[in-house]
Every structure is written in structure tokens, then in C-alpha cells.
């Protein structure tokens, strides 16, 4: 899938916070959490604030952990997860310190999905539903 020139957070249900430079995203619509590696956090912060993909690829040129190919795969993954969507906004330039931040990253691009509420079902079936289908679609514990 060709990359869009610029992306935006996919919906108002996607909210995020940063902790010591590491991003955590919550999809309010289904309660899924997403934790990013250090390089992934930098890329998420750039893309979610409207930095254009070309500018991002240029910023990552000297970064061992962020090849252009890996970046393309990562962006596609964020779109597939429903976190980002192509945007028609004007792409923003990257910040001056982004190349250094990406070069300093020690982990490859990665986003982990935390959907481990299944164990809570035994504690409290109040959420024993398969979102977004909802009742009466009972969540299947894998």
C-alpha cells in the first residue's frame, strides 16, 4: 500500500499519553491499549502531530533502528490497527531534534497490543462482551 503524504489520528476515540518519552495509546471504542518502543514512540508522536511521511523518512536517514522499509511497514500497521488514517492536511516539517532522537533509539519500530482483559472476565463478567459487537456476543477467552 503506498504511503499517504500525511496521516492523522484515526478518530476521536484514539487518545494517547507519553511517559518518559514512551507513548501509550488507548482506543476508547474497544478498550485496547497500544505500547510503543522508543523508536515507535518517536514515529507515533511525529505522525500523530501531522509531520509528513517524506520529512519523517528524511529524519530517519541516519537511524539504525528505523529504515525506510521498516517505517513503511510500521505505518501500514498503525493504519491497520485503526490508530492512524491518511489525511488531506498539509504535511508539517519534522522538528529539528527528530533525527537525533531517532538515531538515539535503541529498539526497533514496534507497537504491542494489550487486549488482555480476558482474565478479568473471571473476576467480573460485567465486560463479558465481544466489542464492538456487544451483547449478546460473549467474548471468547482464547
Amino acid at each position, binding site marked *: 500500500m503506498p504511503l499517504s503524504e500525511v496521516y492523522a489520528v484515526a478518530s476521536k476515540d484514539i487518545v494517547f499519553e507519553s511517559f518518559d518519552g514512551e507513548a501509550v495509546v488507548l482506543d476508547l471504542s474497544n478498550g485496547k491499549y497500544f505500547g510503543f518502543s522508543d523508536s515507535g514512540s518517536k514515529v507515533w508522536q511525529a505522525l500523530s502531530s501531522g509531520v509528513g511521511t517524506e520529512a519523517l523518512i528524511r529524519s530517519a536517514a541516519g537511524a539504525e533502528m528505523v529504515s525506510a522499509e521498516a517505517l513503511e511497514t510500521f505505518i501500514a500497521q498503525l493504519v491497520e490497527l485503526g490508530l492512524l488514517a491518511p489525511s488531506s492536511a498539509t504535511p508539517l516539517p519534522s522538528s529539528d531534534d527528530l533525527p537525533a532522537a531517532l538515531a538515539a533509539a535503541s529498539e526497533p519500530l514496534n507497537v504491542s497490543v494489550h487486549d488482555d482483559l480476558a482474565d478479568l472476565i473471571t473476576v467480573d463478567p*460485567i465486560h463479558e*462482551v465481544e466489542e464492538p459487537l456487544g451483547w449478546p456476543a460473549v467474548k471468547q477467552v482464547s
Partner: protein
Amino acid sequence: MPRVTLETLPDYARFLIAAAEGAAAQFPVRRTVRLPGLELIAHLDPGAFADALGHAFLETDGDSLSSRQCRIFIGHPGVGGMPVPASWGDAHFTEHGFAQKLAEVGLRGHHYHDLDFWQVYDPDRRVGVQLMRSADAFPPWEQGAPLRAFLHWEYAARGMRLAHTGTLGLDGRGVLLAGAGGAGKSGTVVAGLLNGLDSVGDDYVLIDLESGVTARPLFSILKQDPQGFVRLGLERRLGTDRPINWQGKHAFHINEIAPRPMRATLDIFALMVPHIGGGETSSIVPMSRKDAVIALASSGIAQMPGERESGFRFFSDLTRLLPCYRLLLGTHPEEIAGTIADFLARAPDEAERDHAGL
């Protein structure tokens, strides 16, 4: 049987509140529960739910929070003119969509389909209704933490939060124990209590960020599965003749094992995420705030209806205020408690320094 859709939900919620207030004089029992900063007045009839209100809360005196009053009507068609509860009429239902629809009109709510069990709350007027098919037609988890959804909505409206955490403390300073069920949280709280530490509760405690991180007690019930009950020596201490709860667990009152009367508050200086370590001895190692917030917020938000975004922001702020640790649990309750007691006895700034070295 009336059916409610997302479209008619706000009107139905308002209808329930009006019906309950109209029938107020016909609720035979009025029970007052004194919680931190909140006097909860429950209107209901005698029975299992009234009994649960009598023993499930930890009522404390001397709390510094300014107090408000809220009224909750707990009704069914056998009380005054209370209506038969409606069923959900849309094919599609999500907790988030349901909560959002009510939030648009300033209300909060929850619906448990299997029992046509409704809870709606107006945080501006601090009036709520729990409508059931009959006096005992409530979900089984309500007995251990009754009316928790109303407390969640009321405290959230005031910038506080019910957190799905355990607590342990010493001399007024304590730690939060976060994580999903099965991580060892409840067993750790019991191990601590049995070995001289304090707690302001397990499962749900009230958190306030007004001045640092403060935890306050709400519910008194502790739970242990049969294996944990034996491993912790509770079989000898409490006996085995009490009934098993709906989860197949032993339920008991925190004051049955607490070493001293419950404190009104614990000043929290660290967040811990327990894990079954697999080793003989316990250890406490720094962990990233990113991982800690996922452990803390995911269960805290998922177990409460509505307020997801405000909950995420709240738990994020909380996590930024605290150093975070992974607690790798050993196998002996005394040793686990000793490890935490040693940690608690160290100065909070030492804990902060540990974390700075991550």
C-alpha cells in the same frame, strides 16, 4: 416489555430517575453509608442488597475531604410505582457507545442485559437509580462491591477515581498494587496484612491526586481462591464454614485479618505491579511508567462503566507522579510481606532515586 434503544436511552434514564423520586416515600428502608467525602443515602427495601450495604463498606471517620450527599434509589416493580425494567432493544450495544450517549445529556449509566439490570446517575443532582426485576435480581459481584458504579461516577465528577488496585502501607505511607486478576495482587495484600502491614483495601480503593497520591478505603471485602486461602493460612485463622462466593472464592472482611484499625488514608509513594516470580524470594525492580500505566489503567478502566478517557488521563497523571516497580513474588507469604515492609521503611526519595536509575 418496553425496549430501550440508543436513541431513547437518555429519555429512559430520565424517566427512571423521575419514577424513583416520585416513589421516594414508598421505599421502606433508608440506609446511610459514610464514605470519604460522601454521605451515600440508599433508599431500598430489606433483603440481600440491604444486607450487602451493611457489611461491604469500610466507613471511616476523620477524613479531611469535604463531604457531599448523594441519593441512590434501589428499586424494583414491587416498590411503590417503580416500573418493570426495560430490555435493550437494539441489536448493537457497546459499553462505550452507551456511556457516550448518556454523557451527551449529562448522565451516567450501565445496563446488564442478562437481568435487565439498570443503573443511571445524574452527577449534577447526585441522584441515582438502580432498577432490578425483583429485590434479589442483581449481578452477583454487586454483593462484594455494591453500588460501585455510582461511586465511580460520583467520585469521577469530583476529579477522583476508583482504582482497581490493592494497597499496603506502613506508618501512613504506602504502595499501590496494580494489575489484572491472577497477577498475585490480592494474595500480596493478604500476606501483608497477616504480617503487620496496613491496607486501605483491595480490588477498589479511592484515589485522589489533590496533594500527591492519596488512597482511601471504600470496600471491606477481601477474596481468596481456595488454594490461596490455604497457602496464606486463612483456613486455620478464619475456618472453612463460610460460603464460597460466585467466583468460587472465600470472601472475608478486611478487619478480620488487619493488624490494627483501618487508617483513613495512605500517602502513596510507589506503584507496584506484582508478578508470580517463580523464585523462592521476592524482589522489587524498577519498571517503565509505560508498562506500569498499562497494568494500572487497563483493568481500572475496563471494570468501570463510562469515563474511559477521563480515566486514562487520571491514571496517566497518577503514574507520572510515582516511581514504578515490578514486584516479583516469592513463594512464602512472610517473605513477600517482609520484602514490601523493607521497601516501605525506606525513604520515598530513595525509591525515587532507584527509579531515576532506570
